[in-house]
């Protein structure tokens, strides 16, 4: 079982999926409500692979895969792939069910403009809730 989980791809890094993920999140009613004042660029890192979610006025305009060092972001969330896979399980194991818990007790990291992240924390959590749903569809 664990082998199967660990070979699962992280779909928000999949070039064939990013447009679907962007559209799905943008159509989520709770994300629309939570993100209405959000204009942030979020760097997500899985091992050494990265993407930037570019959000403007509550809408994900683009998911930029493999960004260059010149691409700017406001805050980041990083973890090893095996930890992301646990985090994105439909029912994550303890501490991986929560961004804060996974950072406090596991090996997730956040940084950059954390004030922006906490100011938009509801939207950030909803973003991951939707990504979690899509990871298993």
């Amino acid at each position, binding site marked *: 079982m664990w082998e199967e989980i660990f070979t699962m791809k992280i779909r928000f890094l999949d070039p064939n999926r990013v447009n679907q993920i962007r559209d799905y999140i943008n159509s989520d009613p709770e994300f629309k409500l939570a993100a209405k004042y959000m204009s942030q660029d979020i760097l997500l890192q899985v091992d050494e692979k990265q993407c930037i979610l570019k959000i403007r006025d509550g809408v994900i305009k683009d998911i930029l895969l493999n960004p260059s060092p010149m691409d700017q972001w406001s805050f980041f969330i990083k973890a090893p792939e095996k930890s992301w896979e646990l985090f994105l399980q439909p029912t994550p194991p303890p501490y991986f069910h929560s961004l804060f818990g996974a950072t406090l007790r596991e090996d997730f990291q956040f940084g950059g403009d954390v004030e922006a992240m906490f100011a938009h924390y*509801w939207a950030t959590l909803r973003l991951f809730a939707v990504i979690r749903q899509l990871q298993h569809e």
Partner: protein
Amino acid sequence: MLKTEAITGKYIYITIHDVEYRVYFEESGEGIPLLCQHTAGSDGRQWRHLMNDKEVTSEFRVIAVDLPYHGRSLPPESKEWWKEEYKLTKRFFLDFLIEFSHALDLERPVFSGCSMGGHIALDLALEHPEEFRAVIGLQAADFTPGLDLIWFDHPRISAEFKYANLYESTAPTSPEKYRREVGWIYSQSAPPVFRGDLFYYSVEHDLSEKLQQIDTSRVAVYILAGEYDFASTPEMCGQTASKIKGAEFVKMKQLGHFPVTENYELFRGYLLPILKKISKNR
């Protein structure tokens, strides 16, 4: 027919350290007093499911208090509280709970609290064993450092953060409506209260060198911990219990930091056997 609940509310006046406080509490049931303490930055509404559980209220008088500055217990009128930083100290917390119990003339109540309420359960067991027949500490640990964090009280971060952050402190398996209720209540406290309470929870409360002094022959000690709690983890709570001779520890599956509120139906399966034991030993 009008749908109602058995819970009633009341205001009383209590003086602590020469300051008078107008204190709100709710109660339900008759029998052995069960005094319930809410978590940091929250209020007594967290206990509503327990207070509506007839299997409990048929044998226990359940009382849930709002600490001063929380819920319907407003800040005191007799001092300029707005000129001081709000901080919950262990001394105030202990003295308030003892005074509240005396004001209601409770006879050796059972004390139950969650998170900071769980921590103070252990402080009460150590410092006032004669006052209580048992303490039930939910998410209770000897020491939980590192959580007195600036973003819990910052002018550029709204109450919406608390709504989201405490929502994610519940178990993902708990009913969504009650997970949201936890967050909702948290979004309603005054800006400095949650962090001010964390001063007690994460800085001042430290029983790491004193657990062995708790005498369970004088006051029974039960510690229950939800497996999804990343603040007072089951490991921390279990280690705490193991250092108190005679204390009982239960790890609760599929529950997070707010077992009473987030999934009472599941939680009562852990609580009721303990209450029955206490009732039998009355």
